[in-house]
C-alpha cells in the first residue's frame, strides 16, 4: 500500500514540475495554457492522494474547470497573430534575476533546516474520511464572517465586470 502510494506521489510531482517548466518555455500560447492545466491537475492528484477529496474537487472544478476555461476563451478570442508581431522585450531581467535568487535562498534554507526544525507532523494514517463535512462545518460555523465578506467581494467583482462589458455590447 505504502509503496504504491509513494510511486504515485513521485509520478504526480514529477508531472507537475515537468509541465510547469514546459509551460514557461513554450512559444505557442495555447500549448502553454494546456501545460498549465496539466500542472493544476497534477497538484489535484496529489490532494487526492492525501485523501483530501474536497480539495481535489475544488482544485479541479475551480481552477481547471473555471478559470482555465476563461484563459482559453480569451486566448481564442484575441487574435494572436497581431500580438505575436509586437516586439518582445525583456528589459526587466535584472529585477527578475534578483527575485529568483531570494526565492532560491529561502528554498535552500528550508531544505537544509527541514529535517530538524520545520518537521511536518507525521502523516496520519487516515484523515477523518468525512473531510467534506469537516470543511463545511469549519466554513459555516467558525469562519462565517470571512466567508460572507469574500462572497460579497466576488459579487461586486462580477457586477463590475458586467457593467464594463455592457457598454461595449
Amino acid at each position, binding site marked *: 500500500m505504502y509503496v*504504491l502510494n509513494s510511486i504515485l506521489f513521485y509520478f504526480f510531482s514529477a508531472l507537475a514540475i515537468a509541465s510547469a517548466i514546459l509551460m514557461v518555455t513554450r512559444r505557442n500560447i495555447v*500549448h502553454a495554457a*494546456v501545460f498549465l492545466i496539466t500542472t493544476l491537475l497534477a497538484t489535484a492528484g496529489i490532494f487526492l492522494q492525501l485523501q483530501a*477529496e474536497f480539495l481535489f*474537487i475544488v482544485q479541479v472544478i475551480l481552477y481547471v474547470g473555471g478559470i482555465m476555461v476563461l484563459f482559453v*476563451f480569451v486566448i*481564442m*478570442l484575441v487574435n494572436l497573430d497581431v500580438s505575436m508581431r509586437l516586439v518582445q522585450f525583456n528589459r526587466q531581467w535584472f529585477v527578475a534575476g534578483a527575485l529568483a535568487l531570494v526565492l532560491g535562498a529561502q528554498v535552500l534554507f528550508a531544505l537544509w533546516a527541514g529535517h530538524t526544525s520545520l518537521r511536518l507532523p507525521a502523516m496520519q494514517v487516515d484523515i477523518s474520511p468525512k473531510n467534506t463535512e469537516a470543511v463545511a462545518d469549519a466554513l459555516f460555523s467558525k469562519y462565517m464572517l470571512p466567508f460572507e465578506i469574500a462572497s460579497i467581494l466576488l459579487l461586486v467583482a462580477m457586477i463590475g465586470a458586467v457593467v464594463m462589458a455592457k457598454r461595449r455590447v
Partner: protein
Amino acid sequence: MGHLIPQAILPYVLPVVYAVVIVMVLPLLAGYIVLMERKVMADMQARLGPMRVGPHGLLQPIADAVKLLLKEDIIPENADRLMFWLAPLVSVTMALLAYSALPIGPEFQIADLNIGLLFILAISSLGIYGIVLGGWASNSHYSLLGALRSAAQLVSYETAAGLGLVSVLLLAGSLSMKDIVQAQLDQGVWFIFSVPFGFFIYLVGSIAETNRAPFDLPEAESELVAGYMTEYSGFRWSLYFLAEYANMVIVAGIATTVFLGGWLRPLASFHEHFPGTSIEWPDAFPSLLTLGVAFYCLSLAPKQPVKIQKIVMLAVAILCFILSGALLGALFAPTGVMQGIHGAFWFMAKVFAYLYAFLWFRFTFPRYRFDQLMRLGWRFLIPLALVNVIGVGVAIVLRQQLGWGPVASLIPTTLATLGVAIWLAKDDAPAATVQTADGE
C-alpha cells in the same frame, strides 16, 4: 483467491476489473445507442431505418466502427498538430473517467467516493477543453465559431444542471451516489416525485450539455456545416463521436441514480411474495421481459431474407434465453448476487428510457437559435433552478421544525416554483423578436 494477489494492490484489483469491463463495453454500447437512435428516428418518420447489415440492422454498429477505422485520417494543412491530436483524446478520457463514480449495481461501482456526484460534474465539465481545443486546432473559421458557441452553451447550462442536482442533494443529504440511492430507498419515494422541477431542469440542462436535440447549435448543419468537428475525419472523428455518446450515457446515469432510484426496482417497498416462495412479484418481471424478447427474436429468425441473418437472429435469441435464465437463476441465488444482477438490469433499463426521451426530443423539436438558447439558459432555467433550491430548502425546514409530513411540506413549495416558472416563461417567450428596425 485473495492470497494469490500481493497484499499491496488487493484493494485496487476489483476497481481495475470493473474499469476494464466498462471501457470495453462502452464503445459497443455507444454503437448500439446510435443504432437505437436511427431505428427510433426511422420509426417516428414512418420508415424502417437500417435493415441491411445483419437482421434488422443489428450489425450496423460494427459496420460503422470498421468503416470509421478504415477511413482516411486527414489533418488540415497548417493545423496545430499537437492540439489537433490532443483534443479528441481529452474529450474521450474525460467522458470515460466520469464513469468511475457511477453505481451500476449495489457493489458494481469502481470507486465509491464520498464526493461522487461532484466528481462526475467536475470531470464532465472538463469535456469543454476537448471541444474548444479541437475547434482552435483545426484552424478553420467555421470550426472556431462552432467551438466557441458550444463552449458558451456548455458553461451556461452546466450551472443550471448543477443547481437542479443541488435541490435533490438537500433531500439526499450526501454527495456519494450510493448514499443518494439508499436515501431514496429509505424515504420510499424516488426523488423525481419529490422534486419534479429538479428533474425538469436537469433534463433540459443535460440535453444542452451534451449538445443534443433542440440545442444542437454547434453542429447545426444548416449554418456552420459541422461545428468543431468539421475538419476531423476517420478515427479521430469517431473519438469525438464516442465522447458525445459516452457523455449522453453518463448524463442518463446521473439522472437515473439521482432521480429514478439507481438500481432500485420500481416498486421497491412492495413485498408480496409468490405463494410459497421467496420471490417477490416485481422481481420476476426482468426475466419474463427477456424471455418475451427471446421468443420474439425466435419468431423473426425464419423470416430473415438472407441465411447469415437467420443465424445471427438465432444467436440473438439464444443470447436472450441465457439472459432470462441468468435473471431467473439470480432470484434463487444469495441476496448479494441477486441484487447485483437485477440492480444492473433496472439501472440499464432506466438509462435507456432516459435516452429514449433524448431521442424523442431530437425528432420533434426544431432547433433553437443561439440567442434564444442563451436567453432560455440564463433568464429562465437558472432563476428557476435557484427558486427550486430555495423551495426545497423551505420544505425541509417545514418538515424538521414544524413537523409536517414529507409530502405535505413538498407540495406547496413545488406549486410555488410552478408559479414562478409560469411567470418567468410568460414574459420572455422566445418569440421576442431580434428584428431591429429596418437597416436604413
